[in-house]
């Protein structure tokens, strides 16, 4: 056990306690959290900085406004309902309009108008929000994901998570929904996590459950060696997220839209540690490297160049 802990430390694997004590607690100021915990604020910040986000159709802030829902989604065939302050993807619904006023979920099941209103009410009362406090509901554009992912994702929306420390992208992964994950891009629900080479934007090894996979279990297409389009833009967004929020240690979740290109889905002040498993590499050493050379990294370009140079796949 002790030996295992030592080997993990030598590999630079970051544990939850160390992430909290030495990174989020020190580099993320509490007063900045609302900027990322409230997705509405994140959206406004990103738009002000000229970064693309999914188009916002409407916001529901109190129970009475739930009846405005049909008006908000009028004219959109597909949309996403999400809590403004949700965490871990809880409470997010991706819907398409179906027959007889029903809404179709990615897994093919249907939802009635009343059920949707109930779900909206639940979000408002805060059962999905971080501290349990009353929340807002965002209704926004449903991403038509890039065809590159159609072959390696089962239902749901694949996304790209980049961890950025002091404005330097340090690690990235692609999360691919599977049948087991029920269309959700969440690793411990059964989605595939594939590490990404920061220099080239090409996927490395992929992890599914506790094992390594080369192909997607549902589509049987290879998941390694896939080149992610718009990679320079993604790195740019990740690097600029620091100036955007002021959070030193954050996770940037990006989706690739077929027509609109990269869209920032959300920012995360406490990004999970599974990315290390997907990349088969520890975060700790990379973070220390950035800390050691932070003085020389002034501009966004410097930081991206640093990342490409230092965190390329071996």
């Amino acid at each position, binding site marked *: *056990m002790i030996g*295992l*802990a030592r*080997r*993990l*430390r030598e*590999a*630079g*694997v970051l*544990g*939850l*306690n*160390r992430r*909290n*004590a*030495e990174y989020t607690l*020190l580099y993320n100021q509490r007063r900045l959290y609302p900027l990322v915990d409230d997705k509405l604020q994140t959206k406004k910040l990103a738009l002000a900085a000229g970064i693309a986000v999914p188009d916002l159709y409407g916001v529901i802030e109190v*129970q009475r406004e739930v009846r405005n829902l049909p008006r908000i989604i009028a004219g959109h065939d597909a949309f996403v309902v999400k809590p403004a302050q949700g965490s871990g993807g*809880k409470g997010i619904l991706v819907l398409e309009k179906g027959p007889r006023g029903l809404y179709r979920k990615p897994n093919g099941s249907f939802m009635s108008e*009343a*059920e949707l*209103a*109930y779900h909206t*009410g*639940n979000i408002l*009362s*805060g*059962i*999905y929000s971080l501290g349990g406090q009353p929340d807002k509901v965002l209704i926004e554009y449903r991403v038509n994901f890039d065809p590159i992912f159609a072959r390696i994702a089962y239902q749901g929306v694949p996304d790209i998570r980049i961890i950025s420390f002091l404005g330097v992208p340090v690690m990235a992964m692609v999360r691919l929904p599977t049948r087991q994950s029920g269309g959700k891009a969440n690793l411990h*629900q059964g989605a595939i996590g594939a590490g990404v080479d920061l220099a080239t934007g090409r996927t490395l090894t992929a*992890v599914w459950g*506790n094992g390594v996979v080369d192909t997607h279990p549902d589509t049987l297409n290879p998941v390694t060696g896939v080149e992610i389009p718009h990679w320079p833009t993604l790195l740019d967004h990740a690097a600029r997220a620091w100036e955007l929020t002021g959070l030193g240690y954050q996770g940037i979740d990006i989706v690739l839209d077929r027509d609109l290109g990269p869209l920032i889905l959300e920012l995360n002040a406490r990004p999970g*540690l599974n990315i*290390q*498993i997907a990349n*088969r*590499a*520890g975060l*700790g*050493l*990379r973070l220390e490297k950035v800390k050691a050379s932070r003085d020389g990294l002034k501009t966004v370009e410097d930081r991206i160049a640093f990342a490409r140079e230092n*965190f390329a796949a*071996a």
Partner: protein
Amino acid sequence: MNNRHLYWLAGVLAAIAFAIFGYKVLILKFPVTPDRLATAWRIEARIDFNAHGGPVLGEFLLPRSTTTRPVFNEAFVSGPYGIATRDAGDNRAAVFSIAEATGPQTLFYRATLELAPATETPAPSPTPSLNRVPMNEAELAAARALLVKLRPRAAGISTLMGLLITNLRNARPGDEASLLLGNSRSTRRIVDTAIKVLRQGGIPARRVNGFALAEDRRQIGVAHWIEVYVEDRWLPFQATDGAAGVPPRHFPWWRGEQNSVTITGADRPHITYSVSMAHQFALRAALERSRTIGVNLTDFSLFGLPFQTQQVYRILLVVPVGIFLLVLLRNVVGLRTFGTFMPVLIAMAFRETHLIWGITLFSIVVFLGISVRFYLEHLKLLLVPRLAAIVIVVIGVMALLSVISFKLGFMGGLSVALFPIVILTMTIERMTVVWDERGAMEAITQAAGSLVVAIFCYLLMNAQIVGHLAFVFPELLLVLLAGILLLGRYSGYRLTELGRFRVLAGKDPQ
């Protein structure tokens, strides 16, 4: 981050705590472990009877508090009955009454007693009247014959008692003793017969009814011995062999040949007594010592508080111990639980309900709560009304369980008062969300995890030594505080992470 400030703070806190602790242990000789041979006992009397439907009036004899045998923390649980205590000759009595009652009734009396030291001289008391017990001709003749036989051989009251009891114990068919005793050879019969004979001979004597306080017992039988009035004092004699003195580790409860409960308007009552050790008074000596040294620790410590408040702090002061364990389990081991401190609150509830019943209650309430919660899902209620509805269901379920368990004669069901209803409700709500989002397995795993943590917390918080140390040495809280502060900067791996990241071990990071 410079941790020196933190280490310094934790060090100072621990140093202060250990200094006070050391002073109390080494100089004031406070006991570090709970005293095994406690001299204080908690005793509970439970009176069950069947009321006839009219007024009920009863009297229950109580122990009298003396300087050598103090009785404290008396409490009655009497429901609608009116209770008054009065002096009843040799005894103290509680009179209980009600205008109308039907069916089975239960009353409780609880008190804490302290055993007198083995060598004890009884206090003088006024001359009692000699109530000769009415006897028939044959008995009278037998008693007189026995006295005539024994008196010349006895040098004093002690030898007379020895001879009398031995004679009664060894009664042979046909002799005087056998005639007096009749069919029974019980201790009570022997005591009553000895008293009859003594009184016939002009010596005031009475029966003493009490209890042996040797171990924790659910139901204990009443023990009997004799007191004889000699030279302005009642002297005790044992009923086994007539030896002088109260039987070892026995506490006298009431005196006289009557039953402890007399009642009108109801059937013959059934009384059960249970005893358990009470440890708090083992500390008396230490507190006395601190008083003589001049440090008045009693007045400026938890021992100076009213007993009720002390009881509350007995519970509160072990909570930090449970919380410390929780921090360890969450941040070092890496277990996940519903609600940050929920397991500790459940563990506190277990103190009242005890483990098996507590786990049963928790499982039943959560199970029924979840069932109701899933049913309410269909009604599409808003969050706060939905939670309120679950609170009511939880309370209803607990009340129902209490009633059922009481009817089945199982007392554990009555001690649910501390069960954290609101916390349980939040647990149920969170569990259903996890159930929906992550599936039943994950929800049940997390609930079971919370329960396991609660059990660990309970076992630790309920350990006798922990309760003793926390209450007698509350300064040790500072050590826990220091420990928790240090854990607050613990940045090593959690045990569960070793498994989670196992695949990354032994590989080059780049």
